[in-house]
């Protein structure tokens, strides 16, 4: 069996995004806003656009981004529709996101101070152990050749294994762009469709979320309107007239 860590590959992906919190914080800070529901709602579209336009987010990362994207949509709905009553759990979700952002912001700031300390070149050095001492042959009493073999096998077993997840390619996941195009086309054809229909050929949860995000995107651009009569009821999507 071989153990291969595709470190450079993995690394470059991590480098580009640094995760959804990083992106969200940058968007808010760029607009010089505080972390509030209003500011989060304000940058929600930019966040979603980033997901839409950026190629090559690994499926693992994409799920993280989408999860935050979903929360942003919730926040946005709440800000746009003040009468919308959110579940207690959803409110807690929003509070949690804000707290996580504040927390991350503090560490992003402090890491700059840590960097300043690290680069100022005033450091402590320690004495190399055993410097000035002469080598004395002092073998351990109870070690035999077999122990070395065992120790090495133990080391080799602990090597990081191939990340299976990374093998899945972005192609497995329908892009948001494609989904938006699909919904637009079928709407033009039929003028009205349901969410179930829109999400009919999705293969997994991520795709369902993408479909939902895509619909909301269309709502934002006033391409479609949506209607839901009962809670948990079917969502009807209509082309705006």
């Amino acid at each position, binding site marked *: 069996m071989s153990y291969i860590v595709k470190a450079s590959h993995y690394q470059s992906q991590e480098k580009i995004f640094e995760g959804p919190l990083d992106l969200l914080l940058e968007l808010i800070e760029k607009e010089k806003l505080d972390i509030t529901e209003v500011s989060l709602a304000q940058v929600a579209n930019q966040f979603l656009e980033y997901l839409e336009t950026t190629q090559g987010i690994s499926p693992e990362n994409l799920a993280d981004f989408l999860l935050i994207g979903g929360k942003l949509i919730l926040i946005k709905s709440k800000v746009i529709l003040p009468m919308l009553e959110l579940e207690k759990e959803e409110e807690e979700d929003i509070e949690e996101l804000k707290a*996580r952002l504040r927390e991350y912001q503090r560490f992003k700031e402090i890491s700059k101070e840590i960097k300043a300390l690290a680069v100022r070149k005033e450091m*402590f*050095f320690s004495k190399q152990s055993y410097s000035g001492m002469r080598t004395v042959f002092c073998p351990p009493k109870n070690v035999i050749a077999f122990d070395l073999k065992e120790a090495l096998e133990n080391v080799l077993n602990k090597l990081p294994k191939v990340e299976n997840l990374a093998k899945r390619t972005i192609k497995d996941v329908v892009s948001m762009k494609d989904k938006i195009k699909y919904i637009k086309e079928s709407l033009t054809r039929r003028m009205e469709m349901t969410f179930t229909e829109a999400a009919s050929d999705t293969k997994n949860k991520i795709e369902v979320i993408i479909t939902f995000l895509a619909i909301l995107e269309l709502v934002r651009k006033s391409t479609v309107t949506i209607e839901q009569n009962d809670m948990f009821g079917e969502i009807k999507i209509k082309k705006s007239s």
Partner: protein
Amino acid sequence: MKIESIIESLLFISGEPMNFKRLVKITSFKEKDIKSSADKLAKRYSEQCNGLRIIIKDTKVQMVTAAENSEFIEKFLKADIEGELSRAALEVLSVVAYRGPIARSEIEEIRGVNCSFTLRHLMIRGLVERINNPKDARAYLYKISFDFLKKLGVEKVEDLPKFEELRKKELLQKVDETESSGNDDSKKENKKVVENN
């Protein structure tokens, strides 16, 4: 005074960080006396402004050179300039420094991304070390190393900028703010904080 002198000798000979327990074993002094002597030494060295310093972290103590002389030490050691730390590495280091010992999952919760590669890199560079998680045998807890303190020229973690402030979790502060809005809620939030961190 004698105990301080012995600790000084041992720190010099070892070069590496020495555990208080190990000093107890060698000297047969009480651990609390060793601790207070180490603290006294650290204070004296720092006040005397001589060429040496004592740094203390957790249960270990190490003798190092004064930061202001680092230019000459580098010249003597012909030390290779190490690669700069990336933003990811600095963020992970900060989280570990202020919140350690900390599980990988908690670091990832704060940063919102997978940190396994960065942590590995920091361990290889010797800036972060790991210990077994007492609550989960399969997992580790990460904390900063003496080499991290040495690199920054900081004698103890408490001397890091805004240490007390950053040590406290953001979510817990939130609980304080909402305390007036009812006990039930804040209890729930408190519970949540524990789960999330």
